[in-house]
């Protein structure tokens, strides 16, 4: 049993567990603010998970290079042998922005609900009329 593989598995399974706990928070907490906090934990966990899908265990694990001048073809061949998948990172970049927009709208709606009804408890809001 390799130690690195074991630690990597612990990270992935903790993320699955974190997703489950965040979903539990979304379903059971009565306050809208706590629901939104759980939703952000949920989306951040999923984003980290997607980045880990693109991970590659290269030996020796390289330090990300900062390329300012044009690299040589030989260097690039080495780079392709060791670099991680960039596509999940680009997808997560989009997901973060969209998630931020949704979060901002949810927060404004919650703020307005609090201003009008004086509460963010879903049990009380569902009983309101008019």
């Amino acid at each position, binding site marked *: 049993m390799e130690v690195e593989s074991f630690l*990597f598995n612990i990270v992935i399974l903790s993320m699955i567990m974190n997703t489950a706990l965040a979903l539990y928070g979304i379903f059971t907490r009565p306050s809208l603010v706590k629901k939104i906090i759980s939703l952000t934990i949920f989306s951040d966990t999923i984003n980290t998970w997607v980045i880990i899908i693109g991970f590659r265990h290269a030996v020796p694990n390289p330090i990300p290079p900062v390329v300012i*001048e044009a690299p040589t073809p030989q260097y690039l061949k080495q780079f392709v042998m060791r*670099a991680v*998948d*960039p*596509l999940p990172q680009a997808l997560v970049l989009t997901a973060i*922005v969209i998630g931020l927009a949704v979060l901002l709208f949810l927060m404004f709606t919650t703020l307005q609900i609090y201003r009008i009804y004086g509460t963010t408890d879903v049990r009380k809001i569902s009983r309101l009329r008019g």
Partner: protein
Amino acid sequence: MSRPIHIFIVISLVLLVVLLSMALSMGGFGFTIPPHDVRALARLYLNTTFNLDEKYRYISAMSPEAVTAIVWDYRGLDTLFETSVMFIAIVGALAISRGASEKLLKSSPPKQGMSLIAKTITRITIAMILAVAASIALHGHLTPGGGFQGGATIAVVPMLLIIIFSLYLFSKMMTVYKAVTLRSIGLIGIALSTFIVLIIALLYGGSAYIFQNQPKIYSYYGLPSYIEPIVLGGTLLLFNIFEAFAVAFGFAALLILFTFPEDIMKNIIIGDE
């Protein structure tokens, strides 16, 4: 819910994670993670992102930062549309908090903001934050980062100004209307920097390429990807600058709306009915 059952749930969850990961790392599912190789698609991206080789030269995106190249070049102005989604969120926020204008802030309280120590430190840190944000946005085609990340870092400045110097002082510098207008100018700047090569090509008669991974053999006009030996990334630099501008002012508008005094907002809502 009692205390012992909470402890029992936590212990069982931790045990589940540890035991499952032990089973996985021993090869219980027939494969081991992390993988030692990436997909063929990833290898294609890594090969064509920046390559001066004869084979890849004309399909390369000419940006050392693969994520920025994918977001702008391979997916064709993807970030413009995702910023538009954020713009729709701002429109929604403006619609919800309608009637909240800075004119209502006229009666400012005598004592504004935090203490002198906090204000002096904020004045120093704001310069540092702006320097870091400029570095993130301007080096978006070289290092991890880019327009959106730089803009989000700049947005820390209005947040600090509102919390430490109070909204009354900040609304003299920046209003919601001004911030949304500047944001729209940033979005128009992205569109203009897309078409700038097309305008040049039309003036001189010929065809142009916007992104570096478009067919470059058949067209002669385009922004330079690198001037020896500095890498510029073609249009990426302009895109990142305008994107940072747009995102920063979008956040500024939202922060003003968020921190609007609660008693004034209550008056607006009651006044409507």
